[in-house]
């Protein structure tokens, strides 16, 4: 198998020469995935926290449903968004099919349940720990929501990163709603799928290596940000108890 060696040299030469096509594809991948994660975070954090703090009929069902939605198949989400955005579909007038916006929409649907479900777990654990304290201060679930989200922010970073992992790795949804159009909607994963179908396995694997490095960079940056923030907080008035990273499902 010379493919592995070829993949390595291919990846290296693409990066070293700053291949313009590669830069465009990487740029679009980052914009789509980070954009989707940003939107999903804005939706997922409050929704997950609310589900953890408020008691209402059918709450258990909602928790189970949310946890199940973490496993939504990207190709199904892609198909649903495709049918909605198609000119023949209900949102067809927007003309969004085969655009990066459509790809962001599909990935938001994939990522938001992950962020929300993991947030619910984190906040529920924090609430169990601080409920009495907060109640004695006169804070009900409504006021506790913001405080606990802030308190759990380092644990919640993991939830957001899990969402990013999902967004940057999936190919099924962006392929269907984006159409893998060169220079318009081609991202890393669809480019890899294309090179596989052309039989250029070395190039496909090379692109895969670059995608992995990108993912490591994003996660590394997040980790270091968290470390730096935690350190600057040392000695501050409200220290998060260390080593209580709640077990995630």
């Amino acid at each position: 198998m010379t493919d592995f060696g070829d993949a390595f040299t291919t990846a290296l030469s693409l990066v070293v020469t700053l291949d313009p096509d590669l830069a465009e594809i990487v740029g679009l991948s980052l914009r789509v995935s980070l954009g989707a994660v940003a939107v999903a975070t804005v939706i997922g954090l409050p929704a997950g926290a609310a589900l953890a703090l408020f008691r209402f009929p059918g709450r258990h069902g909602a928790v189970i449903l949310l946890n199940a939605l973490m496993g939504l198949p990207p190709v199904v989400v892609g198909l649903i968004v495709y049918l909605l955005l198609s000119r023949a579909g209900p949102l067809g007038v927007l003309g969004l099919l085969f655009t990066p916006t459509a790809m962001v929409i599909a990935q938001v649907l994939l990522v938001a349940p992950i962020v929300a479900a993991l947030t619910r777990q984190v906040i529920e654990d924090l609430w169990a720990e601080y409920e009495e304290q907060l109640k004695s201060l006169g804070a009900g679930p409504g006021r506790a929501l913001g405080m606990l989200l802030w308190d759990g922010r380092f644990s919640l970073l993991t939830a957001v990163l899990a969402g990013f992992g999902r967004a940057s790795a999936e190919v099924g949804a962006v392929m269907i709603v984006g159409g893998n159009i060169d220079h318009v909607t081609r991202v890393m994963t669809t480019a890899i799928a294309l090179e596989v179908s052309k039989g250029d396995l070395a190039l496909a694997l090379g692109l895969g290596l670059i995608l992995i490095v990108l993912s490591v960079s994003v996660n590394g940056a997040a980790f270091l940000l968290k470390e730096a923030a935690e350190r600057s907080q040392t000695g501050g008035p409200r220290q998060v108890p260390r080593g209580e990273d709640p077990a995630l499902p």
Partner: protein
Amino acid sequence: MRNRRPNPRSWSTRIVTALLGLLVAFAVHGEAAAEDRFIVVASTTSTANSGLFDHILPLFENKTGIQVRVVAVGTGQALRVARNGDADVLLVHHRPSEEAFVAEGFGVARHDVMYNDFVIVGPAADPAAVRGLTDAAAALARIAGAAAPFASRGDDSGTHKAERALWAAAGVDPGAASGSWYRETGSGMGATLNTAAAMDAYALTDRGTWLSFGNRGQLVVLVEGDRRLANPYGVILVDRARHPHVKAEDGQAFIDWLTGREGQAAIASFTIGGQRLFFPSAKSVGGS
């Protein structure tokens, strides 16, 4: 670990900044040139995977300033995309479906663009002994008789439709053997060739994809030259009467160019390893 460092934030902050800067640089550097003027062309994997579009589209885009966005899927799906109004132009290779598309009022008119041919590829060892046959149906009958592995697209694409027509001509119903020697991949041409190469299976492929395909393994061309293996491509403008948002002027400009002198010459000049992949066949050469 923290206690050993007097200023623990400096190094990590620098790395964070560097990594974030790298990501931002990529994101900004890779800003796609968003053209205002573009058309969407629903086409087949064979035209895109072979590299034909990479060869001819820049010529058209430079001349007219109209960006051509190609969505490359199987012919069956391309027809559905166009039927839903999600494309302005359709460029596929299954004449009966194309004519039906126009007859049902979805397309304005069908124009010949180019043709190439299908070939039957298979392992060099050729267990069904079809090498050199010029009767494609007879070759398929032998493959079925030998129960030799055959990888089918199985995706309702133009190639799959052509393959089913050949099975019918051979008087064989391969669906009965689906899962044993007849293996339907449900994927594009390239993915099916990857599968065939890995299983030493026979497969029907268009010559364009085959010539540009990089992972042949033991596969070689065994059967070619049957008239039933002809593979004509047609281009159709989606009818604005059906879908008012269709960019009819720009779409027609593309069709005129493609079937005109320049487009036809561009198609003829596309070669891989000295071999032509597509042969121009537009009737109204001139114009453009």
